């Protein structure tokens, strides 16, 4: 293969992975806080939870839009096939995101807030659920024809494996949401989220263990891959490192450290993500379409790097600036 035709799709695979990772981490805590708002005992607490997000949710969600656009441009075949196959989970996510987005503003103006509280909490849950199903079924594989186009049926995405992935992802979001709230709140509210973080850490761990064990047992393609050298060492190392990180996370939670739990959680996400990337690469639709088959023409990939690649550090810079401006605890229900 032409080295350029090999290298450019790899670059875009990496960039897409970066966008997806930023999205999962940032909108992850965002959606997690939304799900946690369902447990808030009163309006003041819910107000604080939503205020902790009000200036960042939009930018966080934008990573999803960027990821979508980049996938569309860099791997048009994969974009069409995956979204076509995941029709129902994608619309679950979309309707969830719609409700939670409008809830921010509408709740503020509403006299009776109950409906918008649920729109925010359940919308977040629905969005996370849709994403979990999407992730689960992409990992499981999407039925395609010889040209790589979707050839499956409507309910292919629903299986016990995708349910397992979806539940685990939701737990992961609740975990990162809890550790984010630990950094943003104090007092009683912080106590609550030390507790939710602990519970979520354990449930995420259970889900991760199930997925780790079941994947090589039930997927032949993954099994042959995992038990090859040098993959086997990497895949042996990941669960061990993961266990270590979870232990560090739990320890920081019991020591009531404020920032460390969030950082450990991010590292757990990073590790999981790297593991998934290694299993998937070089497939963009696992085990049926590779990045080389789905990639746009090399000229398109170069064109996109020129226009988009250099923006990544700039985007990160002003996003970080926004976090700096709004650093510190949220105590009242509003920013002014």
């Amino acid at each position, binding site marked *: 293969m032409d080295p350029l035709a090999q290298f450019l799709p790899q670059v875009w695979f990496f960039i897409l992975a970066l966008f997806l990772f930023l999205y999962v981490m940032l909108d992850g805590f965002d959606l997690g806080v939304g799900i946690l708002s369902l447990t808030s005992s009163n309006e003041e607490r819910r107000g604080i939870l939503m205020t902790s997000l009000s200036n960042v949710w939009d930018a966080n969600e934008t990573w999803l839009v960027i990821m979508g656009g980049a996938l569309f441009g860099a791997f048009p075949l994969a974009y069409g096939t995956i979204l*076509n196959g995941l029709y129902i989970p994608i619309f679950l996510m979309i309707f969830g995101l719609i409700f939670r987005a*409008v809830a921010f503003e509408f709740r503020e103006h509403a006299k009776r807030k109950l409906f918008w509280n649920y729109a925010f909490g359940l919308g977040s849950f629905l969005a996370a659920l849709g994403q979990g199903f999407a992730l689960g079924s992409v990992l499981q594989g999407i039925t395609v024809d010889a040209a790589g*186009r979707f050839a499956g049926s409507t309910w292919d995405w629903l299986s016990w494996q995708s349910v397992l992935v979806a539940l685990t992802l939701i737990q992961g979001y609740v975990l990162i949401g809890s550790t984010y709230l630990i950094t943003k709140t104090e007092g009683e509210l912080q106590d609550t989220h030390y507790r939710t973080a602990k519970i979520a850490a354990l449930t995420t761990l259970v889900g991760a263990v199930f997925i780790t064990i079941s994947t090589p047992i039930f997927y032949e393609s993954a099994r042959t891959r995992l038990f090859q050298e040098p993959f086997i060492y990497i895949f042996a190392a990941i669960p061990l490192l993961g266990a270590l990180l979870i232990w560090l996370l739990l320890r920081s939670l019991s020591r009531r450290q404020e920032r460390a739990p969030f950082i450990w959680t991010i590292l757990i996400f990073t590790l999981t993500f790297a593991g998934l990337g290694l299993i998937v690469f070089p497939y963009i639709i696992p085990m049926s379409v590779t990045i080389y088959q789905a990639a746009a023409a090399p000229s398109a990939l170069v064109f*996109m790097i020129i226009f988009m690649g250099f923006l990544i550090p700039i*985007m990160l810079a002003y996003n970080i600036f926004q976090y700096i401006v709004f650093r510190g605890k949220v105590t009242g229900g509003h920013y002014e």
Partner: protein
Amino acid sequence: MDFLSDTVILSRMQFALTAIFHMLWPVLTTGMGIFLVIVEGLWLRTRNPAYYHHARFWSKLYVLNFGIGVATGIPMEFQFGTNWAAFSEAVGDFFGSILGFEASMAFMLEAGFLGIMLFGWQRVHPYIHYFATIMVAFGANLSTVWILIANSWMQTPAGGEFVNGKFVVQDYFQAMLNPFSGHSILHMFFATLETSLFVIGGISAWYILKGRNQEFFSKSLKIALAAAVVVAPVQIWVGHVSGEQVRRYQPTKLAAMESQWDTIPAGQAAPWSIVAWPDEQGEKNDWEIAVPGGLGYILEFKPELSEPVYGLKAYKPEDRPPLVWLIFYSFRIMVGIGFFFAALMLVSAVQWLRGKLSVDTIGSQRWLMRAWILAAPLGYIAVECGWIVRCVGRQPWIVYGQIRTAEGVSNVPASNVLTSLTFFAVVYTFLFCCVLYFGARILQRGPNLNLPVPDFEGRLPVEVEPAEHLPDSRPAEAQQEAQP
């Protein structure tokens, strides 16, 4: 009810519904973003707190529209994959990249500074805040540019060719600067600005008529009017040029816009139908009221044409746009509103020069104020009509002359699309009512003139330690009214 089992028609209906609904919000926020840059700039220049309060009041309406604009924009992007996968695969190399640029260059810029613009008044220096406001407005308008480039390319595909049904790009810049891009971007830019100006003017006129905050709102009405003096005539000219382009590049669309069935050869006088009822089966207009030589004047400023105008009959029935009546009347409504805006601007400007719009006299201009209130929703209608002409007129092509809409659709059962379409219809209707309701509540409450104005020299709010933010125990309503 055959269409209920037709994935193509249902997917088109879904795209049309979501696009028509989505467009309502960014149309206001992109234009109003520029208005906010103007009033905040006036504040920084004059240090007159009135302008600061303008920025705060109008940004309340801004954010109400912004949230729902974001929420309804996401389905637009994803539908290309869920409902139009074959189209996405065929044109992704170019079209997908452009959507990626829109998200990373424009949308993220807007999103990244929005928080500071809305909530950063007491946290950053006023100049940094102003920078954030400019970035938000710039990002929004850059979004328009990218979206219009993508859509224009679907109208006049350039910069490459279709090989085995897949678009292979040869020159990206030629594709981006396709024949429709330039004027379409300008036409949409002025459309968002004009819509926002007349919304702001209309709301201001409502307060003036009610006798509330007349001094405050006569200011915003005049700012909107001053801008409209430039925008309204320019928009008519840009619209005219866009029409000439349609004639050159999309003759079937022009024929549908004018409900023209027979070709008018060069050298003949071309009449223009003001109203008509097109009969697609009979390939004629059932009735019409036409101005002799009118079309010639519109297209070439003289009654006889120097080049022929092709009628719909010159094309095979399967190559003609459907719903000729819709295209025909949408076009007329859009043009009519454009001229109404220009006339309203003209009358208001004359009254202004005669000194009738000062704080003491503006309240007696009751008819003029009513006309402005009437104008407030018209911009939206004009924009929607314009897009109906643009996109229904492009049919039966998804990429004009290259890929038929029916060839671009996903492999999805009609029942799935029907379900998602129904959800969209219900949810969007509900959200539309909510925005009207909450928007009305913001207007009822009016501007808060007691908001403390940030200082320029004193403490730099960035240095405030988070611990100093004491919890505010008052009820939410009271907190919104005034911060201590």
